C-alpha cells in the first residue's frame, strides 16, 4: 500500500463512519426525489439545464463538498486525531492531496449519480436534455474536487473553515457574484457552468468563462492544494497549554 492510499483509506473510513454520510446521502437524493415528483405528475421539463444548475450546482454540490472537505482534515486538526498523521515523515503535500482526492471522490460519488438520475427523471433521455444532464455530470465531477480542495484548504488555514466555506458558497457565489460583474471569475459555480456549456451549449443560458472554466478549474485546484500544503507545513497545533 502506498502512503497515498493509506491516508485516503483511513480518511474514507473516518468520513463514512459517521452520521453525516446518511445526511449527505439524503441531500444528494433530493434531485432524484424532485425528478420522481415531476414523473409522478406525468411531466417532463423542456430544458433540464436551469434546474440542475439552480439546485444541484448551487445547493447540493457545495453543501456536500463543504461537509466532506472540512471534515477530511480540518475536523481532524480540531479534534486532535490529525496529530498521528502529522508526526510521520510524510510531505504535507501528500497529506493534502490524498485527503482532497478521497473527500472529492466521495462528494463526486454522491453528486454525479444524483445529477444523472435527477436529470434523466426531470428531463428524460431525449435531445438536448440527456446531453445537458451528462455535461453537468462531468462538470459536477470536476467541481466536486475543486470545491473540496478549497474547503479543505480553508479548514487548514482557519479553525472556522465550515463557516467561511458556507459564507463563500452562499454569500459570495449566491449574492455577490450575481451583483458584481467580473467577480464571477472567482466563482466555482461559474466554472462548472462554463464547463457544462462547453460540453452542451444549452446547459446554461450564458456563461462568462465558457470553456475557460476548464482552465480556471485547473488553476484554482492547483492553487488550493498548493496553499493548503503550505499552510499545513507550518501548521501549529491548537490547544496547547
Amino acid at each position: 500500500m502506498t502512503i497515498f492510499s493509506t491516508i485516503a483509506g483511513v480518511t474514507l473510513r473516518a468520513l463514512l463512519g459517521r452520521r453525516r454520510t446518511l445526511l449527505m446521502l439524503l441531500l444528494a437524493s433530493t434531485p432524484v426525489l424532485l425528478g420522481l415528483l415531476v414523473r409522478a405528475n406525468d411531466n417532463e421539463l423542456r430544458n433540464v439545464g436551469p434546474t440542475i444548475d439552480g439546485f444541484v450546482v448551487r445547493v447540493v454540490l457545495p453543501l456536500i463538498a463543504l461537509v466532506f472537505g472540512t471534515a477530511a482534515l480540518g475536523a481532524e486538526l480540531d479534534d486532535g486525531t490529525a496529530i498521528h498523521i502529522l508526526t510521520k515523515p510524510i510531505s504535507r503535500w501528500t497529506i493534502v492531496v490524498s485527503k482532497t482526492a478521497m473527500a472529492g471522490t466521495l462528494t463526486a460519488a454522491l453528486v454525479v449519480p444524483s445529477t444523472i438520475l435527477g436529470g434523466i427523471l426531470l428531463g428524460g433521455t431525449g435531445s438536448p436534455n440527456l446531453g445537458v444532464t451528462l455535461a453537468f455530470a462531468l462538470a459536477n465531477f470536476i467541481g466536486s474536487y475543486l470545491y473540496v480542495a478549497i474547503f479543505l484548504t480553508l479548514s487548514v488555514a482557519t479553525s472556522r473553515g465550515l463557516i467561511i466555506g458556507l459564507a463563500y458558497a452562499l454569500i459570495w457565489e449566491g449574492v455577490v457574484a450575481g451583483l458584481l460583474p467580473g467577480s464571477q471569475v472567482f466563482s466555482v459555480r461559474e466554472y462548472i457552468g462554463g464547463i457544462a456549456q462547453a460540453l452542451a451549449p444549452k446547459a446554461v443560458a450564458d456563461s462568462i468563462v465558457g470553456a475557460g472554466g476548464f482552465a480556471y478549474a485547473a488553476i484554482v485546484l492547483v492553487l488550493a492544494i498548493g496553499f493548503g500544503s503550505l499552510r499545513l507545513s507550518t501548521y501549529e497545533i491548537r490547544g496547547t497549554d
Partner: protein
Amino acid sequence: MTMSPAADPGAVGPATATPTPTSAPTPNGPEPAISLERVSRWYGNVVAVNDISFALAPGITGLLGPNGAGKTTLLHMLAGLLRPSSGRIRVAGQAAWHNPSVYRSIGLVPEREAVHSFLTGREFATLAARLQRLDDPVAAAAKAMQTVDLEAAADRPIGTYSKGMRQRAKIAAALVHEPPILLLDEPFNGMDPRQRIHMMALLRSMAAAGRTILFSSHILEEVERLADGVLVIVAGRLAAAGDYREIRRLMTDRPHTFLVRSSDDRSLAAAFMAEPAVFGAELRENRLTVRVAEFAGFTRAVARVARDASVTLYEVGPTDDSLESVFAYLVSRR
C-alpha cells in the same frame, strides 16, 4: 502529594543509561539527541516557555512541573508541532520545526486522547507503520502491540478501550518504527498501578537499549521512580535540571511544616524544641505543628524524640507538600 525521603534514589532508573540533562548543550563531542538553546515560546503577550536551554543524552528524563507550566508546549516544540518564538531546537541532529523527516527519529505520545475510535489497536499501529514506510508494517505493528501488552485487545476498536489501553495503543503506534527518541506527554494518566509498573519497566528497557526518552509528569513519584535525570519547569522557566538526587536534596532540604498527633502533644513539643532540626513548635486546638529546618533530619529524629519523652505518636505528616510549594521553593532558589 507526599514525598518519601526514606526511599533510596539509587534504586531509581536503569543501570545502563544515565541521561544527563544539562542547562546548556554540550560544546564538544557528538551532538546530543535533543538540544534546546534559549528557546522561548509566547502566545500574544503570554509567555508559555521562557528562555530554556538544555541537552539530553540517551536515558530517561522526567519533565516535571505543575499543570500549565509549559510542559506540553515544550514537548510540542520538540515534536515539531509548534514553532519556537525564539531560540533553536535540534532533535536527532535535525531541526524539529518544519521538517517532517525528523519523525523517522521521533516517537510522540500526545496527551490528548484523540484517536480514530473506529480503528482497532492493531490497525492504528499498522497505520503508523505504513506511514513510516516500514518494510513489513503488519509484523512491526504486531511486535509493538506485544511490547505494550495489548495483544489480547488488539483486534477490538479503540473506541471500546479503557483510558489506559488507549494510552498503550498510542505508545505502540509511537514505538512501531523503533525511534531513537521517544517523547511522552503525561504517559501514565489513566493507567492503573499494574499498567503503570509495566509501562515503567518498558520505558526502562527502552532506555537501556540506548533510546532517549523524555516524559512529562506533574506527579513527583512518577518521575522519582522512573527518571534519573529531571528537568523541572515552572511558569515556563527551567527551575532545575540535572540529576534527580541533587534536585531532590534541594526539595527535601527546604523548610518544612509537620502536623503531629500524639498521646501528649505538650511534652512532645517541649522535647522537639531541644532538637537542632526543629526551630518552632505550635500547639493550637489540640494540634501540634512543628516547623523544621531539614526534612530528612526531622524524620529521622521524630521517633527517637517521642520514645525518649515516653509519648505515643498517632500521626506524623508534612503539611506543605503540595507540588506547587515544592516548585515555588525551587524557583525561589534561582
